[in-house]
């Protein structure tokens, strides 16, 4: 005959194990998904980001890039070829962990701020799958060299570099 104490201990252990597994299974699943992504299905694609400030000298910009679909992950943010914005813009490093949105921004207080279509940054994504990726973009704010808000246009095109 099985002792009552043994039954109770077994049941208690089983309950505890079930609760623990329920609490941790989600994170395990996430890590498994990340690690089982096939390298063969991944590719990298770079895009140049342009801000067109028209006749105004570009003093500051802040743009939002979105990659709907969950197939793209930001892997690199670099500055543009423009002398004024040649260093990597500000962005939240958390965007490198995934997600479908990143905000880029920078400012320039030096002389001879660029005008017109200014290349301000290059972003690189790892893309899952062979399909072409669509990047959404919008200007959140832009300012001229005097600090006044201006209308500007953002353009994101595949990088030639």
């Amino acid at each position, binding site marked *: 005959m099985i002792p009552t104490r043994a039954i109770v201990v077994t049941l208690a252990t089983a309950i505890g194990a079930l609760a*623990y597994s329920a609490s941790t299974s989600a994170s395990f699943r996430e890590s498994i998904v990340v690690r089982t992504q096939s390298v063969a299905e991944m590719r990298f694609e770079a895009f140049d980001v342009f801000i067109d400030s028209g006749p105004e000298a570009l003093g500051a910009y802040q743009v939002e890039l979105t990659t709907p679909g969950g197939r793209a992950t930001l892997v690199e943010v670099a500055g543009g070829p423009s002398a004024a914005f040649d*260093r990597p813009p*500000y962005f939240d490093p958390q965007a490198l962990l995934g997600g479908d949105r990143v905000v880029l921004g920078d400012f320039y207080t030096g002389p001879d701020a660029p005008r017109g279509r200014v290349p301000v940054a290059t972003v690189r994504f790892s893309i899952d799958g062979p399909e072409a990726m669509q990047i959404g973009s919008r200007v959140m704010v*832009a*300012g001229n060299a005097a600090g006044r808000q201006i209308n500007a246009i953002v353009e994101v095109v595949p990088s030639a570099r």
Partner: protein
Amino acid sequence: MPDERTSQHEQEPELSPEAQNAIRELFGSGPGVPPEIDERLLATVRAQMPRHHEPEPRRPAHRPERRPRRLRFAGAGMLVAASLAIAATVVVQSGVLSSATGPSSGSLAVVPDPEADSAGEGASEALLDHVDLREQSRAEEAPASKGAPADSAESDVARDDDVGYQNTGRSAPAPASMPTLMAESEGAGAAIERRARQVRPTMLDAFRVASALKDRRAVDARWDVTGDGVIDARDVEAIAKAAVALPAEEIPGGAS
């Protein structure tokens, strides 16, 4: 065997002859039982009955005394209750953690809050992390060529009445939407992170502060987001980082 009988007889009280006779008169003598059968019956009964008169054998030292059944059930119930409590704690904690996790450094989103300015003493570890990372990365590059306010007298920035911080002086009031992201002690990170969420400066704000610093114009004291009593490049960095920070709910693994 005679010894056992003797001892048994010694232990059992003998009836007096008068009592024996009275019982015989009352119930009769009854059928006689041969001594052998009587002996076997006694032996069988002795073998099956517990030996009350023998001393209880000593229990081994390692074997605990058996508890009454009721106490055993009580112990089992407590064990089950403790297990359920542990399981519930694990489940609750996992829920709390999952709702509270998420890198706080990316949680600088915003809604204006008038109470934020009065708190003033907190520090945002998240914001400071942004500052430190950015400063490290930019310190390796040429710091004064752009972005951070430089000491150079060169100025391409004109005065503009639309710019809130200009011409206000350090003691002048600032617009209500301006952030007060004081960052004095790392221990009060939660308070300042909350305040950083309440106001989202833009990159244009960072540019305006940087330009004012570069031109040596007065900057509103509320832009001292680092809380060190000085408005400098660190504050500009913090403002710029807060401008591009993602809300916590957009960060993978963050609060949902």
